[in-house]
């Protein structure tokens, strides 16, 4: 059966160029980067080269780049690491209602530890209003964290503007850029953020590795204590092959940013156009113009999401409902709820996220089979009258 993967927001395959750069580090240059002998030095050199590569792409200094075990860990470090290190300065944190669970659950942990967290609303297009941020800031606010690109709907937040509001008041600003990397050219100086989280497996790099930019001078305590790896910000033997893979993936995805954005936007647009023509009562979530080019989040009135995913899956097509992470729960997406979407519509939301290997044929194929699937499920549904 033909297999079409349209779930690149959940994870991406490791590119062959990336895997190739990683391979020697599994069993040839396998040394521990902390060892002083030749095996260790080879690993250390590669590790520091990777760090410089990442730093250069972000316009950071290499001493501001720290490798972690993934996006979730980077987010946890940013939120808990700074909030707990700055308890004396204040106890208030601001984030948004549409953050990834890595941010939201870290904030809930802080609340249990006695800190206070404000969750900013978003409008129906999925955007945080800078005025809301201004109003939420208190004298004891120590950290603001707003995601760059939302993983469910693909909406881009005005990070530069939001960041300025926080920084003008001397408050740390973190952004979860896991979904932004490879879609937006990220420059930490231009953004002026203090922290920025990334993940390998969303950019055709390996799983189990991420990075975080931490601006020089930011007070932060580590999540994992132990050896003095990563300048004592993240203990644990460095995952050299994965780190090298991460840097290579980021380099490639950045180099091809424009061409891939164009390619993926073409696919997305064509797909959307085909669906609009063939499926009535379809709803697009999020602002059409402020989104990354590869992601569409759609509901088909009267139809529940998982049943669409399963139906597409039996035809070899992989898509998601909301984020992969929330598939363990049955509640409607917290992101769509925050956008004010009716629960029955939110339960039907499907995320289509295109990738570099997708083609116009993929678009044709999926747009070809989807109307029938929706029609069949609507015929079973008590929420969709035939005449509508």
């Amino acid at each position, binding site marked *: 059966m033909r297999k079409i993967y349209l779930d690149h927001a959940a994870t991406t395959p490791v590119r062959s160029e990336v895997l190739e750069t990683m391979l020697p580090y599994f069993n040839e240059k396998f040394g521990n980067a902390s060892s002083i002998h030749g095996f260790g030095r080879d690993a250390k050199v590669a590790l520091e080269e990777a760090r410089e590569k990442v730093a250069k792409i972000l316009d950071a200094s290499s001493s501001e780049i720290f490798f972690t075990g993934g996006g979730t860990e980077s987010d946890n470090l940013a939120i808990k690491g700074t909030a707990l290190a700055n308890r004396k300065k204040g106890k208030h944190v601001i984030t948004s209602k549409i953050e990834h669970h890595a941010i939201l659950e870290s904030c809930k942990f802080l609340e249990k530890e006695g800190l206070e967290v404000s969750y900013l609303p978003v409008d129906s297009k999925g955007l945080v209003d800078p005025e809301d941020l201004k109003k939420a800031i208190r004298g004891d606010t120590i950290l603001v964290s707003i995601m760059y690109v939302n993983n469910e709907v693909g909406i881009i937040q005005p990070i530069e503007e939001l960041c300025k509001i926080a920084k003008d008041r001397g408050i740390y600003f973190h952004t979860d850029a896991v979904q932004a990397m490879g879609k937006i050219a990220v420059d930490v100086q231009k953004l002026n953020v203090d922290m920025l989280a990334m993940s390998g497996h969303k950019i055709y790099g390996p799983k189990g590795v991420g990075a975080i930019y931490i601006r020089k001078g930011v007070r932060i305590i580590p999540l994992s204590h132990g050896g003095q790896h990563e300048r004592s910000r993240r203990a644990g033997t460095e995952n050299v092959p994965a780190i090298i893979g991460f840097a290579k993936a980021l380099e490639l995805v950045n180099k091809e940013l424009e061409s891939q954005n164009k390619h993926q936007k073409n696919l997305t647009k064509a797909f959307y156009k085909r669906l609009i023509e063939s499926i009535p009562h379809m709803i697009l979530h999020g602002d059409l113009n402020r989104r990354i080019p590869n992601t569409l989040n759609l509901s088909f009135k009267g139809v*529940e999401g998982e049943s669409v995913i399963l139906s597409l899956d039996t035809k070899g097509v992989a898509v998601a409902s909301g984020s992969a992470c929330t598939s363990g729960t049955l509640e409607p997406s917290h992101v769509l709820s925050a956008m004010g979407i009716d629960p029955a519509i939110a339960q039907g939301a499907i995320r289509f996220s295109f990738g570099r290997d997708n083609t116009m044929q993929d678009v044709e194929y999926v747009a070809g089979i989807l109307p029938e699937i929706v029609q069949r499920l609507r015929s079973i549904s008590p929420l969709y009258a035939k005449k509508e």
Partner: protein
Amino acid sequence: MYSAKVMEHFQNPRNVGEIEDADGVGEIGNPVCGDIMKLYIKVKDGRIIEAKFKTFGCGAAIATSSMVTELVKGKTLEEAKKISRNTVAEALDGLPPIKMHCSNLAADALQKAIEDYKNKRNAKDQK
């Protein structure tokens, strides 16, 4: 995730539809939870002779709906009353744990339909 039997019932659900002159109707669920189920029965001489459903919900919700309408056909009301969530899940070779709780409402909808039938008959008898 799902057993082959669940997938089979999801892809080819039996008894989809409405019964216009149903003797009992059971509706259950809400969109926040993710599933809404409407079950129709036709009763003759204390036996369920027809059952149909309409469901908005995940694979498990659709498959359990389909299965319940199959299980119930030809059963007396007494027998039908014994059909539980577990009966349905077992008939489908099991459901993922997370689905047992929220998307396994078909048996409840059936019980509601039987109740509805009884209420209607009582109302008729009293006339």
